[in-house]
């Protein structure tokens, strides 16, 4: 629908390199936990704050996960923070964690806060599963009224028609989805902290149980328990902190057409990331060829190849061919999800992707380190196709 709307000028360029990732932390990722979701977030947050060389009381901003279980008050009371100056949420489901970086950057650049904590954590395995969780989200209200009563209850069922249409239009195959699953599993095996540690092949993927066609079990991410957190600090302060800063060069969020119902989207195969990515790259002042490593939100295998297209690494429809032949592996054209992603490490709504990007750019990638990784990106994807992206450098 044409609204005669004029796009505003690119006003966010001022956020370039105004903030850095200064601390990262994770709990063990498990299937089963006796810790509360709040405790998991606190444990990951304390690890990130210690990594930054800060005291928990130094945190003066917090962006709790938008549909999570901990709120800003929990961090004030657990950490004894005297004067928390900034708290918002980024209600974009799995795009929230990276969208929160944009909000943190703005808060830091405006002088509102100095050290902003981005926590995430949950018992996704031993607590309520995705289908039960999302039904309560306010952003699922429309789908709850018009689609869930028909049986489209879980994200896998709501997202499958995007993949099915992509296959029908472009000839994308389930075996190409499998390439994403197999490569991501290889990376998880290199990581000492991953839920899925058994090698899989394309044939294993093809034999895995059909959940909601075309998505098989191995196309789906792993519900798991744990926590992940990062600290975002102003660039000036970051230079004198404990760890080598990882600079946020560009960051943006993007909302797809028809954001509350995939069904009404003019093109089912285009996500909000298609709007966000050009803005983030312009802010960063770098191009696709400059990206050494990518952490791409992978709630489903298809979501990875669709985002690769939406960012412009290949044309729409060519994502299936792009991911073949180990392109996403270490030494491949675009080393992706070097930690094992949501598909095989843990479903921490992508905060584990932010953690992994910082690790890679610090050179802390251990067995999965991309040699000389200087610039990388991390994306988020959430709800009905919301997108977010951050481009970072060492």
């Amino acid at each position, binding site marked *: *629908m044409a*609204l005669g709307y004029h796009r505003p000028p690119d006003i966010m360029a001022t956020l370039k390199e105004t903030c850095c990732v200064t601390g990262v932390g994770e709990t063990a990722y498990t299937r089963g936990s006796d810790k509360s979701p709040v405790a998991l977030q606190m444990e990951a947050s304390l690890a990130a704050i210690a990594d930054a060389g800060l005291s928990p009381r130094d945190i003066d901003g917090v962006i709790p996960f938008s549909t999570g279980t901990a709120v800003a008050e929990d961090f004030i009371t657990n950490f004894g923070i005297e004067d928390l100056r900034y708290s918002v949420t980024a209600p974009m489901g799995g795009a929230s964690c990276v969208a929160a970086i944009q909000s943190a950057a703005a808060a830091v650049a405006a002088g509102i806060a100095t050290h902003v904590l981005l926590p995430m954590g949950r018992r996704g395995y031993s607590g*309520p599963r995705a*289908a*039960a969780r999302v*039904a*309560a989200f306010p952003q699922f209200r*429309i789908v*709850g*009224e*018009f*689609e*869930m*009563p*028909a*049986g*489209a*209850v*879980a994200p*896998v*069922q709501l997202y*499958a*028609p*995007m993949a*099915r*249409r992509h296959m*029908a239009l472009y000839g994308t195959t389930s075996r190409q989805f499998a390439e994403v699953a197999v490569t991501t599993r290889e990376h998880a095996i290199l990581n000492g902290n991953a839920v899925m540690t058994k090698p899989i092949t394309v044939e294993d993927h093809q034999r895995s*149980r*059909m*959940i*909601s*066609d*075309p*998505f098989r079990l191995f196309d789906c991410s792993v519900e798991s328990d744990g926590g992940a957190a990062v600290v975002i600090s102003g660039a000036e302060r970051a230079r004198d902190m404990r760890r080598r800063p990882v600079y946020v060069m560009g960051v943006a969020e993007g909302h797809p057409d028809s954001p509350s*119902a*995939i*069904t*009404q989207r003019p093109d*089912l195969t285009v996500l909000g990331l298609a709007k966000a990515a050009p803005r983030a790259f312009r802010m960063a002042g770098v191009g696709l060829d400059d990206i050494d490593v990518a952490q791409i939100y992978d709630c489903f295998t298809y979501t990875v190849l669709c985002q690769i297209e939406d960012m412009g690494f290949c044309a729409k429809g060519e994502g299936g061919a792009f991911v073949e032949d180990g392109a996403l592996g270490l030494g491949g054209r675009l080393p992706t999800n070097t930690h094992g992603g949501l598909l095989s490490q843990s479903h921490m709504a992508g905060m584990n992707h932010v953690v992994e990007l910082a690790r890679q750019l610090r050179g802390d990638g251990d067995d999965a380190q991309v040699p000389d990784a200087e610039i990388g990106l991390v994306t988020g994807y959430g709800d009905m196709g919301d997108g977010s992206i951050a481009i970072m450098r060492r």
Partner: protein
Amino acid sequence: MSPPADDRLLPRPTEDSRPFWDALRSHRLDLQTCADCGAVRHYPRPVCPACHSMAVAWTTASGRGAVHSWTVSHQAFHPAFEDRLPIVLATVDLEEGVRMNCRLDGVAPEEIDIGLPVEVAFEDVGEGMTLPCFRPRGVRRGGS
């Protein structure tokens, strides 16, 4: 915390959507239409995104459409659907230019493709609610 599981299955009409559900109860598919510019919109909402008018009308749709995309679900994710597996969920292009995401009955999964002609059917689900669903066009309603 969360409502009883079965509560999530029946639509909860709002002031904006009630005419849609009321029409379904009479086995009629009505779509929200802008009373000023005539643009059809779905799902129901208070403002016309084309001209920003809040003047609402409702027009009865033909009920005819074509498959835009689909999924065949082999897992129910809710007890209410377990005895119906596999469920075919189709995204349908209506002739009026909007889409619906509904169960598609009466077709073998391997026969579904983009463009398959379908028509609306109505399933009374109790508590005064009727859900729209679709069948391949030309297949008579009734029976199982």
